[in-house]
């Protein structure tokens, strides 16, 4: 029972990270029908911008304000990155063949991964790019005394619980934005049919930009939450997480916002339970197996609707 609960907590903690990243994939796929390969790397950049912000400002003493400043700063930085990527890499290709956008996305993904692995050009105040060796994310919040609480014998680090809370809060905010605001309505209209949405007076380009920014900000938040619990960050760690988040998006039904949340949590839990009760050395293979199974059994995902393509 204790072990079961422990796995549940761990799985939930990883699952919310997947869910936050998957939301970016799914929203961008919704409006552009493009798998944004670079999204996993935006998540990585989010963690790194948090790391840099933690070094440059914030006084050094871990506190609530410092955590908020670092998280919001990283979210803004990544939103800008998302805007730049969309504006300069994807928008010029929107009327071209589908494959060109995919190849560009792969290119952008590499540029971030390997650009960050170059040895530093800038040395003060921070070393940028960070280079290939792992760096350690500074602690953002000092909980004083006990670092974790025990429930029924399962250890729950306070930082994970806080991360879980923040992630769930962000998802609620997103739910509100998508279903209760004008922007959200416009976004859903664009993902339903961009041409008609444009004819109805919706500024499609602006909506797409905002969608990218929103998705990237969520990825940055995921990066910060993940890094404050598992502080080792390196330029390549976005690749596998991005891949798994994509699996989560497909599992939930790509293009569906609630699907991405459910898919992320489900994938995190599946991974944790399967790895926990069997051989954990094949942990990374679990998500891949899930992806293959989803594609074979229900390609539309859990929440996706099976659509008939009209020509």
């Amino acid at each position, binding site marked *: 029972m204790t072990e079961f609960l422990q796995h549940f907590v761990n799985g939930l903690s990883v699952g919310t990270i997947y869910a936050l990243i998957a939301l970016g994939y799914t929203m961008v796929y919704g409006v552009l029908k493009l798998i944004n390969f670079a999204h996993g790397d935006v998540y990585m950049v989010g963690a790194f911008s948090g790391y840099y912000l933690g070094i440059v400002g914030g006084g050094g003493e871990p506190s609530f304000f410092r955590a908020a400043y670092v998280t919001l700063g990283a979210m803004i930085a990544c939103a800008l990155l998302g805007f730049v990527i969309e504006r300069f890499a994807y928008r010029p*290709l929107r009327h071209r*063949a589908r494959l060109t956008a995919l190849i560009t996305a792969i290119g952008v993904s*590499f540029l971030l991964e*390997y650009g960050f692995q*170059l040895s530093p050009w800038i040395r003060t105040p921070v070393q940028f790019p960070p280079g290939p060796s792992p760096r350690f994310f500074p602690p953002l919040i000092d909980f004083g005394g006990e670092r974790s609480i025990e429930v029924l014998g399962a250890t729950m680090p306070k930082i994970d619980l806080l991360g879980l809370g923040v992630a769930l809060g962000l998802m609620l905010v997103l739910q509100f934005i998508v279903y209760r605001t004008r922007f959200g309505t416009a976004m859903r209209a664009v993902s339903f049919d961009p041409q008609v949405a444009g004819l109805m007076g919706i500024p*499609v380009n602006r909506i797409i930009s905002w969608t990218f920014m929103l998705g990237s900000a969520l990825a940055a938040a995921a990066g910060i939450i993940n890094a404050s619990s598992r502080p080792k960050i390196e330029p390549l760690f976005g690749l596998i997480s991005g*891949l798994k988040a994509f699996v989560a998006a497909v599992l939930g039904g790509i293009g569906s916002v609630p699907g991405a949340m459910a898919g992320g949590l489900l994938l995190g839990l599946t991974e944790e339970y399967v790895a926990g009760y069997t051989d954990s050395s094949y942990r990374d293979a679990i998500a891949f197996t899930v992806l293959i199974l989803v594609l074979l059994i229900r390609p539309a995902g859990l929440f996706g609707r099976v659509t008939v393509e009209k020509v």
Partner: protein
Amino acid sequence: MARAKAVFRSILPFLLGLPVLFAIQSVTPPDYALILVSVGVNVVLAVSLNVVNGFTGQFSLGHAGFMAVGAYTAAKITTGLVGVDLPFVPQAFSDQAIFALALSAGMATAALAGFLVGMPSLRLRGDYLAIVTLGFGEIIRSVIENMKTLGQATGLSGLPPRTNLVWVGVSAIATVVMARRLAVSTQGRALFAIREDEVAAEAMGVDTTGYKVRAFVISAAYAGLAGALISHAILLATPRMFTFVRSIEVVVMVVLGGLGSITGSIVAACTLTIALELLREFQAYRMVVYAILLIALMLLRPQGIFGTREIWDLAIVRRLFRTRQLAATGPAGASPTEVRDDSTKGVV
């Protein structure tokens, strides 16, 4: 008559190539041999990837994974049979026969892996193949790193030195002939049809999934061949040789040369391999340059250097060899990065 001509056309490159290859093999100093081997292996990789990414318009990112499958299968066979001699034949011949067996086994297992990966992802339209193959490449690496029999992270070493320029040259010729024969066959026409418009192809009765999977399996088999060749040239098979970076290198070659052009793939594979060899001190920037190259190509010249044009479609070459042009429509249509896709037509 036509069939005999086709068979002759397929065999002729080998007949012409073999003496040349033996000549090259005997005059090349060992220092340069390895560079030529890697050029040849990259030609095999690029041309075979072009069958999927260029001819069919799908996008595979997992060529290195199939290389790994081929390399480890072949390495297991050659190291397992290292002291074994076939009866009644000289030892040198016996070694080569075993190597041929190992290469075929590598191709077969890679093809099987290709089937397992391709079948679920190619049933669907869209970019699923890219992400599934990307995942496959990472998974195969983590599987190898966890398997004791495959040497885990250190890999297999002490492979017998079996790869020579003749083997590599023959493989490269075989790949090019395969791609060329495929392009002019019914199968090839079906692939081009899928690339141009999948919905229309399906409406015309093309079994799109079947053709896509077959193309993917063929391509995976040749990737396995390339993996087996390179591992028996550097006498080593480690998971580090078959990372994502390797897959991307091949993708860059194909995209640079032109998706759909065999000539382009060959030229780009040779140029990039030799350029990398000359620019060894800039290794750190290699991936960044690839990334910028991919983005810049897509923005400025999406069809790559050659588009879908082939050197044998040039009027002068056609007159020289009196070959017929592909059907009446000219070269094999437009590159998959050149045509406008209708699925995004609505996005303003």
